[in-house]
C-alpha cells in the first residue's frame, strides 16, 4: 500500500520552545520547482512581542556568563549544525534550486562562522577594550558589554549563511537575539531553531521567526525594548524606514550590504568590527597608589 508522505510543519522558535504562531497562520514554503515543501508557521507581531519579551528576560543571565562560556556555546552551535548539515543542504537545494555542492558549501561556511565567533567571544574585549592614560592616581580602563536585545533581519538569499552571519556576532557580543529569517527560503531558519535548542543556548537567547518582512519590520524598528538591529539584504526604502523607527529609542543599527559571494568573505564577516556594533563601552576609574 502506498504510504502517505508526512510533511513537517516548521515552527517558530521562541524562548526555547517551538510554538505555532499565536495568529494560527501558516505560509506554504514552495521549492524552486514550485512544489510544496512544507507549511511554515507565519509569525505575527504578537509573536514578535513575545520573542522580544523572552530575549529581554534572558539578557542579564546571558551577559553574566563568562565570555569563555559564551564561546563554548557558540562552538556547540557549530557542532550541532555540522551534525545536521545534510538536512540543511537538502532544504537549501530544494528551496533555492542550487546544486547540492553549492548548498553544502553554504552549510559548511555557516558552521565555520559559528566557530570563528566562538573564538572571538573571549578575545574581542581585548581588541575593542583599552587601558586609558589619565592624569591622576587612577587605573582607567574601558571594557565592552553586550548592548541588550538585538533584532536580526536576515537577507532572502544565503538563507542560512546570511542568518548565521548576522546572529553569531550579536550573541558573541553578549546580546540576545530576535531574528526574522529569510522570507523566500524560510525552512533553514526553523531548522536552526532545532539546532539552538540542543546546543546549550539558554532559552530566550536566540529566538527565530519566519514570516513576512513587510508585516514586521516597522514593529521591529519602533519597538522600545529592542536596543539594536543587525540587518542585511534591505531595500533603500526598508533601510530608511528602519533607521527612522530606530531613532525613536536610539537603537544601534548596522545594515550590511553583503550579498552573494560576499557572505563567504571571512575577512569581512568574521571581524570583531561586526561585534563592535552591539556593545556598550564601560569605562572604569579605579583608584591606584599616588
Amino acid at each position, binding site marked *: 500500500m502506498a504510504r502517505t508522505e508526512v510533511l513537517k510543519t516548521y515552527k517558530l522558535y521562541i524562548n526555547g520552545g517551538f510554538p505555532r504562531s499565536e495568529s494560527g497562520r501558516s505560509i506554504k514554503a514552495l521549492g524552486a520547482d514550485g512544489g510544496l515543501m512544507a507549511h511554515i508557521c507565519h509569525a505575527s507581531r504578537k509573536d514578535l512581542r513575545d520573542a*522580544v519579551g523572552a530575549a529581554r528576560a534572558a539578557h542579564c543571565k546571558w551577559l553574566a556568563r563568562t565570555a569563555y562560556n559564551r564561546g563554548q556555546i557558540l562552538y556547540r552551535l557549530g557542532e550541532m549544525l555540522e551534525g545536521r548539515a545534510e538536512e540543511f543542504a537538502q532544504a537549501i537545494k530544494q528551496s533555492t534550486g542550487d546544486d547540492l555542492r553549492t548548498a553544502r558549501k553554504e552549510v559548511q561556511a555557516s558552521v565555520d562562522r559559528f566557530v570563528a565567533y566562538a573564538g572571538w567571544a573571549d578575545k574581542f574585549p581585548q581588541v575593542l577594550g583599552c587601558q586609558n592614560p589619565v592624569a591622576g592616581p587612577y587605573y582607567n580602563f574601558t571594557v565592552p558589554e553586550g548592548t541588550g536585545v538585538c533584532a536580526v533581519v536576515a537577507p532572502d538569499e544565503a538563507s542560512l549563511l546570511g542568518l548565521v552571519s548576522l546572529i553569531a556576532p550579536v550573541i558573541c557580543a553578549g546580546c540576545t537575539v530576535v531574528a526574522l529569517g529569510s522570507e523566500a527560503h524560510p525552512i533553514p531558519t526553523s531548522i536552526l531553531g532545532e539546532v539552538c535548542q540542543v546546543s546549550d543556548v539558554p532559552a530566550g537567547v536566540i529566538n527565530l521567526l519566519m514570516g513576512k518582512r513587510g508585516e514586521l519590520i516597522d*514593529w521591529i524598528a*519602533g519597538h*522600545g*525594548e529592542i536596543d539594536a538591529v543587525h540587518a542585511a539584504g534591505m531595500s533603500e526604502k526598508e533601510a530608511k524606514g528602519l533607521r527612522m*523607527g530606530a531613532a*525613536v529609542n536610539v537603537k544601534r543599527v548596522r545594515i550590511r550590504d553583503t550579498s552573494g559571494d560576499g557572505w563567504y568573505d571571512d575577512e569581512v564577516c568574521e571581524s570583531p568590527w561586526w561585534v563592535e556594533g552591539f556593545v556598550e563601552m564601560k569605562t572604569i576609574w579605579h583608584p591606584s597608589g599616588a
Partner: protein
Amino acid sequence: MVDARAASFTKRSIKTSMKDAGLRIVLSMVDLTTLEGKDSAEKVRSLCRKAITPDINDLTLPHVAAVCVYPELVTTAKEALAGSGVRVASVATGFPSGQFPIDVRLEDTRRAVEAGADEIDMVISRGSFLAGDRGKVYDEIASIKEACGDAHLKVILETGELETYDLVRAASDLAIHAGADFIKTSTGKVSPAATMSVTLVMLEAIRDHYLSTGVRIGMKPAGGISKAKLSLHYLVMVKETLGDEWLDPGLFRFGASSLTNDLLMQLAKLREGRYPAKHDFSDA
C-alpha cells in the same frame, strides 16, 4: 460549569478604540498596591505620584482609584494624595494571616482609620472558617466593620486557602451579611491568588444579594492580574454578570502592582503606534 463560564469571557475581541476605553476604565479601578516588608515612605510617595498621574506623557488618563499600603504608611500616603481624589486603602487586622487576637486586630483597624485610611482591607480568619466556626468569623467582620466607622470595609477571603468554590461562595455570603462593603479575593501573598473562576463565584454572590435586597456590594480581585488583556476579560465578566453599574471604581477594583505598567504600555502603544519598553515606566 464555573470554569467553562469564566473561560467564555476570554473569547471576546476588544480592539482599538474599545480597547482604549476599556483600559482607561481598568486604570481608574486600580488599587495601586505595595505590601512589602521593605516599603519605605519614599517608595509610597513615589507610588502616590504615579497614582495621581499614571503617565506623564498622557495627561488625559484618569487617576487610579486608591493606593493600598500597610497601616504604618497610611499617614505618608494620605499627605501625598491630599486633594487628588485618590483614596487611601490600608490593609489591617493582622494582614496577611489574620492570626492575631481580635483586640489587636481591632486596634490595628482603628489606628489605620485614625491615620486617615479611607478604606480598610481586612483578612478573615481562614483557620476558624475552615474549622467550621463561622459564627466567630461573622462576629469578627461585624466588629471590624464597626471599628471602621466611615471607612469602607473590604473583606479578603483568601480564596487560595478556601479549597472549593462552595466554600468561596459560603465565605462571600458570610462576609456580605456581616457588613462588607467590598469582597476581595486574595492578599496576594498566597498562590493561587485571584482567578476568573473564583471571581465569578463571588460576583454571583453579589448579584444574588443585590436581587434579594437591592444593596450593591463591591468586588475586588487581587493578585495575579498583571496583564491588561486579562483585566479586560474581567471587565467583560463583570458587565455580563452584574451589569454596567458595577463598571465603576465605586463597585469594582483591581488589586494590583504590575498591572498598571502593562495598562500604561498598552495605552502608549495605542497612542503612539509602537511598542514601548518596560523601562519607560517606573516601578513605583
